């Protein structure tokens, strides 16, 4: 390893010899291939095909099972006792009538509260899929209730496979995958599921409502379909289940991912990192930011932002919501993949550096999982603070407004100017988090950048002071234009919150200081927006209609 001085970062960093990953070698964090899910589904499909084929080809097979299992049930019936019968009736009532709707609804509500909508969709969808699968199979097998025995508990339809067992297993397995936070707890919960399902099943044998293979097949369907759905659509590494406070966009930096980050930084960028710790999570929604501590104590730390598919999805949902509410803002097409998102941010960082606009110096991009997770590395602005934590005097105001002037002069827009993105270090203002930046923006976008910067600075000073300093770099007409365009959605949510908490109406104060300027509309109507809105309403209605229509079918009513 050699130590080199990096002119940009102004410090030292330890160099590790970079290493190209040869063809065939797995990446730092291999893509989670849900082998388990496919094996489960494959085994289930094969066994189902074999079973149904056997029953159809060999009628004797069905009769053989009926007789053997019937003998077992008769033995149970002949040895019934009063107290055990009462107990089994209670167990059956709880499992048949209450367990599925109570557990199902509780889970759905918890998932809504936790904003785990993907898990909610998979949970609900699994129940529908199971109900839809059991019906045609049961019609095909057409197995009546146990012969020669009186059924002592409620039942409905053919007995094979057992729909109540399938539904009970499904709601419990769904809880395991959507609400139980880690694998260790899940194993324990798995034992609980098995116990509950077996107990319920035993009550149904005891009360002569179904045969043992009805339970076996029903529970297998419930467990397999639900588990496979969660493993395929909500893999743990991308959609972790946890109850810590924080945005769902933030990925866990420990475990395999932490090791992968260190290895990727060493091999691809030559940085030897000993610690990876999350920073600034509260104000970041589109990535997982982190501080990277080098092995060399003399070296300056680095800043990293991890982007993954989940961030891409958040970006898409955010843009969809904004399109529906306000129309698509200029150049708001979504990123096709994570790589493009990261490439763009790196490009904008380099543009800003070339233009002399103070921002964190880019250090490169590392692949964590190809096409799924990338880490963009920049210098860490050590000892920097957010502008609203600094003593905002004239010098800082001038410095920060100068950044906006430079953006305008170089045909750039930041598009996310807010307190957490304006850092002060050594009396100088820096713009960070340029992921939303734009080249050759519209005049409207440039105006919004100016307004947001002035509002940010005014939070810790005064509108009069900021206005007066701004007139040294911008015309009064330009400032008037900035505040004519600025309201609501044009303000980043952090800035909006801070302005709301401030007793002053800073935006109005600026409008009063600037020349009167007609309000600029931010509503943009287009055929696309109308069609999109109609589609969303239609899909929502269909979803509600079919969802409610199926609540009884899946046991939630």
């Amino acid at each position, binding site marked *: 390893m050699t130590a080199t001085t990096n002119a940009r970062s102004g410090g030292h960093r330890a160099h590790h010899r970079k290493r190209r990953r040869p063809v065939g070698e797995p990446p730092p964090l291999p893509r989670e291939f849900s082998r388990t899910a496919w094996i489960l589904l494959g085994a289930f499909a094969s066994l189902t095909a074999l079973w149904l084929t056997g029953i159809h080809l060999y009628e004797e097979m069905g009769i053989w099972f009926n007789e053997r299992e019937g003998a077992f049930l008769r033995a149970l019936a002949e040895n019934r006792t009063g107290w055990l019968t009462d107990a089994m009736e209670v167990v059956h009532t709880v499992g048949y009538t209450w367990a599925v709707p109570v557990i199902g609804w509780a889970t759905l509500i918890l998932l809504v509260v936790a904003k785990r909508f993907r898990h909610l969709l998979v949970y609900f969808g699994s129940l529908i899929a199971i*109900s839809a699968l059991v019906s045609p199979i049961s019609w095909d097998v057409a197995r009546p209730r146990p*012969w020669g025995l009186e059924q002592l508990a409620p039942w409905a*339809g*053919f007995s094979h496979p057992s729909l109540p067992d399938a539904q009970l297993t499904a709601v419990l397995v769904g809880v395991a995958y959507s609400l139980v936070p880690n694998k260790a707890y899940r194993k324990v919960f798995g034992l609980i599921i098995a116990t509950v399902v077996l107990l319920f099943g035993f009550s149904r044998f005891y009360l002569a409502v179904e045969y043992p293979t009805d339970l076996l097949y029903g529970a297998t369907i419930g467990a397999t379909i639900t588990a496979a759905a969660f493993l395929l*659509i909500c893999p743990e590494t991308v959609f972790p289940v946890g109850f810590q406070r924080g945005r769902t966009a933030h990925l866990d930096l420990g475990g395999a991912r932490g090791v992968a980050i260190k290895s990727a930084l060493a091999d691809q960028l030559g940085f030897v990192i000993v610690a990876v710790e999350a920073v600034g999570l509260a104000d970041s929604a589109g990535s997982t930011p982190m501080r990277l501590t080098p092995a060399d104590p003399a070296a300056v730390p680095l800043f990293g932002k991890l982007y993954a598919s989940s961030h891409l999805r958040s970006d898409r949902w955010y843009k969809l919501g904004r399109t529906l509410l306000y129309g698509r803002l200029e150049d708001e097409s979504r990123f096709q993949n994570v790589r493009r998102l990261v490439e763009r941010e790196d490009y904008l960082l380099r543009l800003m550096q070339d233009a002399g606009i103070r921002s964190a110096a880019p250090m490169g991009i590392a692949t964590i999982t190809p096409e799924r997770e990338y880490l963009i590395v920049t210098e860490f602005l050590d000892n920097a603070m957010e502008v609203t934590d600094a003593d905002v005097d004239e010098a800082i105001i001038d410095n920060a407004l100068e950044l906006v002037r430079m953006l305008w002069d170089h045909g750039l827009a930041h598009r996310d100017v807010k307190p957490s993105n304006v850092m002060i270090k050594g009396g100088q203002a820096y713009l960070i988090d340029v992921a939303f930046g734009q080249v050759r923006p519209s005049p409207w976008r440039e105006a919004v950048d100016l307004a947001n910067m002035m509002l940010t600075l005014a939070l810790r000073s005064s509108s009069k002071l900021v206005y007066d300093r701004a007139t040294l770099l911008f015309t009064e007409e330009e400032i008037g234009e900035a505040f004519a365009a600025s309201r609501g959605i044009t303000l980043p949510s952090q800035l909006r919150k801070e302005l709301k908490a401030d007793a002053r109406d800073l935006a109005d104060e600026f409008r009063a200081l600037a020349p009167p300027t007609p309000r600029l509309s931010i509503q943009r109507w287009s055929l696309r927006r109308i069609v999109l809105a109609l589609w969303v309403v239609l899909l929502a209605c269909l979803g509600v209609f*079919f969802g409610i229509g199926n609540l009884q079918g899946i046991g939630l009513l």
Partner: protein
Amino acid sequence: MTTRSRLVVVVLALLLLTSCWDSDQGGANVPVPWCDNWGLLMLEAQSVPSARLIPCVEALPLGWSAAPAWVDHEGTSFVLNSSIAGTEAVTVDLLELCDVEDAVRVPSDISGTERYEQVEDIVSGFSGRRTYVFDGGCTALRFDFGVEAAAALVNEVSLAVGFVPREAINEAVRTATDGREQLDP
């Protein structure tokens, strides 16, 4: 589109399609109870363990169709639709007890049963009830015709709905198992 996205789209499409499946609580939907569907007849017989006769669909006259049945521990129910009389023109229920208090007893066309008739409305079409009472149970046919010409349509229903003796179903189980099993305890 990634593989996972395609998978999500396919799953959503399947969910929407499968949600059209009219699956009732507890899988109570069973196929049309034809009189030669012995598996379903056994299940119907188990729904009213004491019923001596089990209703089923014998044959469908022109213009009639039958819908899947509902079978549970309380009885069996299925409907017949008519291109003339409308959907759910006839509902057939197998029950342990039937209310014939306001009905009039008439000679029965089914051996071993008592037949009761009750007319409810003849102004806007025809609605009424025919109940067959037999040992251990009863079968109620509710007519709801949106048109006139009720007499001809009721006659057609008589052709559509048949009865299988419980003993025949029991015998079917014994035959299939060489006498080792039977339907009833």
